[in-house]
């Protein structure tokens, strides 16, 4: 039996997210599952109460120590399910909502789960959401739902491997490559008031995307990356800058694919596929080729291990460890704002095809994933697919939707049937706002 831990250290990625915390920004992501029936809030709450104890690293509060932040188990009442809101991924204070860093919402047939990124990455969050959904469906009387895959057994004790900081286990490269640090193109736009997050969802048949990707001899991720780069290049060309900048995408890679671990906490690292328009004009085919070769070259256990070793070495350096937390916060925040954030023009994450047990498939319509509010005024793109439905979600906090428009128009041009859903306000609202400002 696993003894309940009194506290947890933040993992290697999780250290960064709380330092970026502002009144108007938190690293919060959202995962949603759309079922085929209306959600019953009472049963969902019951299912959530049964699910949370199985995930001790999500039932926590974040507190400040002298040198590092840490997580401690949270036994306050909650979290409570709430009706969904039009401005998702709101900033999440460490002291609000009984110190819980997860939120669960329902809207018609959709269950949405939001979590602070310092608790875990998309895979960990998806395990919680799927276990919650399975438990909810069982409460509805569908007893045949099986555990397995993302669905964990709520009656089981948590496996210690689920709670580990897997970075430390695998950060054993002999060399540490330097971090890339070149300024890239940044999307500029009119900022929305801070409680607004604009979402545009593109829903399309997976089979069509697979067909088009095959035509370009690339995987879905490579193809979508190339389309986003293409959209950003178009946007940069339209902006008419004096000097062009490279366009690069920050893409998280799930390290569990390369380094086996059951961890439910963060276990991702970033790769940065991109093109440099200063070298000349790229055709779309050339962008696909560039992204394809970049991914094949960098996304393998050797390079990724070296990459996480660089981060782990920084964290375990004795001089860095004895510096008080508030100084670390200042340094990390300014490093992030000046280097890390400018290192990429947009974010793109692909959760891939959701593996769902046969017993659960009939009840699920599709999934949705939202990367949450971007740190600066750019667009974050997230992709997830389930059976023949692929959902591409754009989240941004600027009024202009140029990148999204170029992106989806390219997909339509390539022959993919795209359906758009959005929480954006009607255009006359924007027009009125502009007129009022005049």
């Amino acid at each position, binding site marked *: 039996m696993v003894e309940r831990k009194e506290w947890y250290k933040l993992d290697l990625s999780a250290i960064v997210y709380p330092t970026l915390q502002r009144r108007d920004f938190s690293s919060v992501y959202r995962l949603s599952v759309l079922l085929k029936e209306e959600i019953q809030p009472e049963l969902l709450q019951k299912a959530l109460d049964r699910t949370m104890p199985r995930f001790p690293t999500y039932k926590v509060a974040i507190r400040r120590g002298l040198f590092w932040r840490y997580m401690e188990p949270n036994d306050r009442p909650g979290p409570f399910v709430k009706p*969904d809101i039009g401005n998702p991924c709101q900033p999440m204070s460490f002291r*609000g909502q009984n110190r819980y860093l997860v939120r669960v919402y329902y809207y018609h047939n959709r269950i949405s789960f939001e979590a602070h990124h310092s608790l875990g990455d998309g895979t960990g969050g998806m395990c919680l959401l799927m276990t919650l959904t399975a438990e909810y469906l069982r409460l509805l009387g569908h007893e045949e739902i099986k555990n397995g895959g993302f669905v964990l057994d709520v009656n089981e004790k948590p496996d210690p491997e689920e709670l580990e900081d897997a970075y430390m286990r695998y950060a054993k490269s002999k060399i540490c490559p330097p971090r890339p640090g070149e300024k890239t193109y940044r999307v500029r736009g009119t900022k929305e008031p801070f409680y607004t997050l604009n979402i545009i969802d593109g829903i399309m048949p997976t089979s069509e995307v697979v067909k088009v990707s095959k035509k370009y001899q690339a995987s879905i991720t490579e193809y979508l990356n190339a389309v986003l780069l293409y959209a950003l290049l178009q946007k940069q060309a339209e902006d008419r800058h004096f000097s062009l900048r490279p366009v690069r995408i920050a893409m998280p890679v799930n390290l569990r694919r390369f380094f086996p671990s059951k961890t439910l906490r963060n276990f991702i690292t970033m790769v940065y596929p991109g093109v440099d328009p200063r070298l000349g004009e790229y055709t779309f085919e050339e962008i696909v080729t560039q992204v394809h070769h970049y991914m094949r070259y960098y996304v393998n256990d050797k390079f990724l291990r070296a990459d996480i070793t660089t981060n782990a070495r920084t964290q375990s350096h004795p001089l860095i460890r004895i510096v008080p937390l508030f100084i670390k916060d200042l340094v990390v925040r300014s490093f992030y704002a000046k280097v890390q954030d400018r290192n990429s023009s947009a974010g793109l994450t692909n959760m891939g095809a959701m593996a769902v047990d046969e017993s659960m498939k009939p009840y699920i319509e599709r999934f949705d994933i939202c990367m949450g509010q971007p740190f600066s005024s750019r667009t974050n793109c997230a992709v997830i697919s389930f059976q023949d439905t692929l959902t591409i979600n754009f989240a941004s906090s600027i009024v202009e*939707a140029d990148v999204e428009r170029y992106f989806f*128009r390219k997909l339509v041009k390539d022959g993919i049937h795209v359906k758009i859903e959005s929480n954006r306000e009607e255009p006359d609202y924007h027009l009125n706002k502009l007129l009022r400002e005049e």
Partner: protein
Amino acid sequence: MSYCVNCGVELDDSAKACPLCNTPVLNPNEMLKANAIAPFPKEKAPVEEIRRTDLGWLVSTVALATAVTCGMLNWLVFRQNLWSLAVIGACVLIWVILFPLVIYHKWTPYIYLLLDGATLLLYLYLIARMVEKYEWYDGLGIPIVLWTLAVLELLTFAGRRLPKGILAGGLYFFTALAMLCVGIEVIIDDYLEGPISLGWSAVVLTVCVIIDIAIITMLSRRRLRDAVRRRLHF
């Protein structure tokens, strides 16, 4: 089922315009789809306000501890005069100024400013009592505090009620600065019983007027204002 004529994407039944390019949806065959469920709820939730009670307690305890220990020290050890009153008054003043920041921020800022002014007046009175000289308090202390208070209240009003923006903010600030300096010099001249004439404050006034005129020109000329915004955006 409608498609955007511009982007070629299928749109949600509840959409009145394409979210990508803002082109309105006009489908004559399906005018009555008002009941379609929107993909996202319309209601927005406000961001949760966090009560900073811990910081409030810390500030209150530190202020109280400083006041009490200084009072005891004055009473038991250094008994020459009532020096501890100055420290205690300062603690009260700091506590009142920090009150809206860390303890209670539901009232309007006008009330907090009034409270700050009243406490400052009391504190100055305390010092006047200690040194037993009241002329400076009547002649300088009260008028300067009242004048500063009035200017700050006006500035707060302008910031909250009048048009907002970086340029407009600058206009209010420099106008307030000029008013404050001119007022203070008049009060000082009056206290020294000399003829009331503008000296150093005339320089501040001139600079502020020049800046104000520049800002007003920029604000009134739309093209100029847009150019300034374009060049100064960050």
